[in-house]
């Protein structure tokens, strides 16, 4: 489904600030895989997802998604089959547009946008039905501006929007990290529900090792731009947080495990 071959990415190449963010990463991802991704801050997790989404071009390597070589495709073109949810709830929606306008925008993801009415009356029942699923009462607030919603509500709406047209790949970059624990849990359940129902190929970055273990059929750990661990199937099911910490010690020469890793 997705295959990365020898993908490398530098930032500020050639300057004193040079960062080697992705170091020859190769990975094959099967259709329907739900992969959780962990790693310390700055390990390259977001860079990996951004490369797949096409936010920037690689310095070397190739990316295939669903038998298309998308290595040089711009982000908007890949968006036809790749959906994303960002960490910042502000990024996924248009604040000055209403809930229904946002949903109407999402309903046209990757399609031609012409001169027919942006929000169509015939779509409203579908919008409401989807919103009902959230259990947040948003189905009665179609004409409210999204800027009025809380972070959690916006993130829930973003999840719906990202999957309104079924994507081939769903990329989640710490999409619950900015939320309070209760809301974070709700969004995580929602994620599980939608991913399960639509059988989406999903990559989810999380800084929570328990979540990484609980969710998905495969787990990869990144460190300094490399995949240092890749576990799937039965082995993943039996993982513990201690196993993960051990793996981290083993594969990295560094003695120091960051607070972020330990606290998670």
């Amino acid at each position, binding site marked *: 489904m997705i295959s990365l071959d020898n993908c490398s990415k530098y930032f500020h190449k050639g300057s004193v600030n040079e960062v080697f963010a992705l170091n020859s990463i190769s990975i094959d991802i099967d259709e329907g895989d739900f992969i959780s991704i962990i790693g310390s801050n700055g390990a390259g997790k977001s860079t990996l997802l951004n490369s797949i*989404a096409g936010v920037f071009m690689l310095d070397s390597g190739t990316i295939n998604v669903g038998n298309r070589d998308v290595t040089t495709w711009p982000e908007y073109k890949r968006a036809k089959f790749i959906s994303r949810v960002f960490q910042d709830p502000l990024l996924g929606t248009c604040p000055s547009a209403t809930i229904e306008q946002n949903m109407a925008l999402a309903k046209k993801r990757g399609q031609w946008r012409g001169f027919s009415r942006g929000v169509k009356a015939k779509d409203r029942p579908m919008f409401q039905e989807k919103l009902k699923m959230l259990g947040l009462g948003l189905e009665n607030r179609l004409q409210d501006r999204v800027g009025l919603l809380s972070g959690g509500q916006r993130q829930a709406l973003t999840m719906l929007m990202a999957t309104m047209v079924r994507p081939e790949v769903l990329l989640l970059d710490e999409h619950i990290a900015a939320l309070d624990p209760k809301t974070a849990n709700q969004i995580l359940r929602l994620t599980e529900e939608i991913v399960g129902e639509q059988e989406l190929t999903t990559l989810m970055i999380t800084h929570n090792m328990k979540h990484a273990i609980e969710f998905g059929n495969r787990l990869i750990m990144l460190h300094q731009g490399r995949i240092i661990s890749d576990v799937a199937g039965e082995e993943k099911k039996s993982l513990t947080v201690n196993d993960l910490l051990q793996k981290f010690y083993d594969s990295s020469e560094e003695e120091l495990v960051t607070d972020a890793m330990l606290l998670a």
Partner: protein
Amino acid sequence: MTVYAALGAVEQGLVYGIMVIGVYLTFRILDFPDLTVDGSLPLGASISAVAITNGINPYYSLMFALLGGFVAGMITAILNTKFKILHLLASILTMIALYSINIRIMGGPNIALLGSATVFDAVIAWGIPGQYAGILIFAVFALAVTGFIVWFLKTELGMAILATGDNPRMITSLGVNTHMVIILGVGLSNGLVALSGALIAQNQGAADVGMGIGTIIAGLASVIIGETIFGDNNIARAFVAALLGSIVYRLAIALALGLEFGGFSFSPSDLNLITAVLVVIALIAPNIKKKVVAR
């Protein structure tokens, strides 16, 4: 202010209102401060005037003007999106280039339309006196343009333009090429500004290369006045407010020009200074208010 001066101000407010709608589109909707307008307004005027003096129907000449403005706006937007030149600088470059281009189009710094056909002829032929003919024609055009923009921004494509100004990362992740949207939006904006310039030229009976100086400032002043007085809580309201803001602005200018302090009075050439001061006050007023409230 005499009734005559007030009528003149309303007329100006309406025709420049078309420009203001263009400015609203870039400045507020696309978040793209665009100085191209100082060049595209006289561009529209030149194209229309030259077309008319070459025997082209004055209505058709408006279409050419609109198209010319559209291309000018597209060039600014392409410089910005494809070549990564800062939007302000890109628009200044186009504006400066247009100065030369406009003189080329007219074959000189200005061109007179005396005795030529204009869009006002038909209305005057109905027996409507000259000073009302302008208001009538401009009102029709201004309302049509406002209606069109409000309709357009509610279409699928229009909503993509709104979203591009509001949250470009989000709309990119929904598959929209924001570069194309910006090129289209800035093009449309300058098309409207050029249309406004063409109508002004036909009304004044001349096109002049210097007539565009201060367009952006007048546009911004009108936008801000409109928002402040009439509000902007939905698209239709925001654009009607911009149009009304243009009328209020021209009335305020007419009023200021009529003032006398002892021996001193403003002359028309002080207009840009007055407007610049007005815009500065309008821009810093919200900050001052915030600071006062914060305490």
